């Protein structure tokens, strides 16, 4: 036998090949003969100093044990498998491997996709339309309008400036109106000529009141109010 061990896919493959050479159904195979063939095969290649992979040697050891069990039955030992059980096991493994090989063969001989059977060659793909939904609120819209219309108002336009009495103005006016008189006078009475002008009324009142407080602080005026919301009385403070 000059078969290179490298041609086999493991010891089981080698055993299956040897078994097939017996040309009988695996069920009727002589396991003893098979074991002997395997062992002599391994011996041959070892004699030829070809390195043998470990699993082949493990199988050889197991088959040697099987052979001894088949030839010398050990009836006393219940834990160990009998030679017949070991032989059945080997037969099962060989049959299973062969069955898987047959199955692979059947599978690969089926009509295959892209070989005998074809899918749609030019599938029609789904086209996705992207669509934007624009979001804007009514308020955004109105504000956008107002903002840009105002932006476009010519810069030279100057709004009418309001009449404002500064504190200094108010103080000067107050001093002039009260004059040298030392009698109590209602504040609004001495301002009456200004309070009739609607655009000056508020600023006249507010500024002269604030100015009067300042003048009180400086010791130039005296203020008096006899009841809540009553008229505010004012007079020049007499110089000591």
């Amino acid at each position, binding site marked *: 036998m000059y078969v290179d061990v490298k041609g086999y896919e493991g010891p089981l493959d080698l055993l299956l090949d040897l078994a097939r050479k017996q040309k009988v159904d695996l069920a009727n195979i002589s396991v003893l003969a098979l074991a002997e063939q395997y062992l002599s095969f391994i011996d041959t290649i070892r004699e030829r100093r070809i390195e043998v992979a470990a699993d082949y040697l493990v199988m050889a050891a197991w088959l040697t044990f099987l052979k001894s069990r088949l030839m010398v039955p050990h009836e006393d030992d219940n834990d160990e498998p009998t030679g017949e059980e070991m032989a059945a096991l080997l037969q099962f493994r060989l049959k299973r491997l062969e069955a898987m090989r047959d199955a692979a063969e059947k599978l690969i001989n089926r009509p295959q996709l892209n070989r005998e059977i074809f899918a749609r*060659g030019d599938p029609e793909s*789904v086209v*996705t339309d992207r669509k*934007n*939904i*624009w979001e804007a609120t009514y308020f955004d*819209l*109105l504000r956008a*309008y107002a903002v840009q219309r105002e932006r476009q108002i010519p810069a030279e336009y100057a709004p009418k400036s309001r009449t404002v009495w500064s504190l200094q103005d108010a103080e000067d006016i107050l001093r002039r109106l009260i004059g040298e008189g030392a009698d109590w006078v209602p504040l609004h009475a001495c301002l009456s000529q200004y309070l009739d002008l609607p655009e000056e009324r508020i600023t006249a009142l507010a500024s002269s009141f604030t100015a009067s407080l300042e003048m009180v602080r400086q010791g130039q005026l005296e203020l008096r109010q006899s009841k809540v919301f009553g008229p505010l009385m004012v007079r020049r403070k007499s110089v000591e």
Partner: protein
Amino acid sequence: MDQNTGQVIDDDNDIGEITGRNLRVLEALLFAAKEPLHLEEAKPFLSDGANIEDLAAQLSEKYKHSGVNLVKRGEAYAFRTAEDLGFLLRREETERKPLSRAALEIMAIIAYHQPVTRSEIEEVRGVATSKGTLDVLMEAGWVRMRGRRRTPGRPVTYGTTPEFLDHFGLEAITDLPGLNELKGTGLLSANLPPDFAVPAPNDGDLFDNEDPLDADDDGDDLLTELSQDDFDH
């Protein structure tokens, strides 16, 4: 097999069977082809002397009412989804996006000042208007081209659509607030020049100085087109 051969009127049963087989083969070839199939390419697969044109016509007929049809593309044939089922192959993906400030401003001007031309929009805004922004507003369905102003250059006039009213919850374009209402809500300041006016918007019929758009008017600037033409000659 009788289903196919039944359509074929043949005295001889054998010929019917051969035609049936040719039909099946052609059908499979057309289905598997990566691009529209020239009938010539099917020839090696069919029986000698098969009338390919006739086979293709029979297949077209067979698929006429199906979800897929056999259609002719130039000199070649292909299976294609029936036209009325084209929607099956289209998906819509929508994305919500806020309108840009520029778009909002242009939208607002169009709403108040319509019918308004692009250069009038620019006058109000003081900046140039990109065509893209107008396109966005038209894509949104809020702005439409109304017509062309009967002035030199015949510029397109823009206006709002019913969808605009719908989106902003207006019953009519006249519901847009006027000058006093805008002042009242504080959107416009109280101090405006005396000649400051907010127009009364009108989204209705064409004005006297507007011409309707032709059906094939794509809104391009006529002056631009003209200069393009000049350039070509």
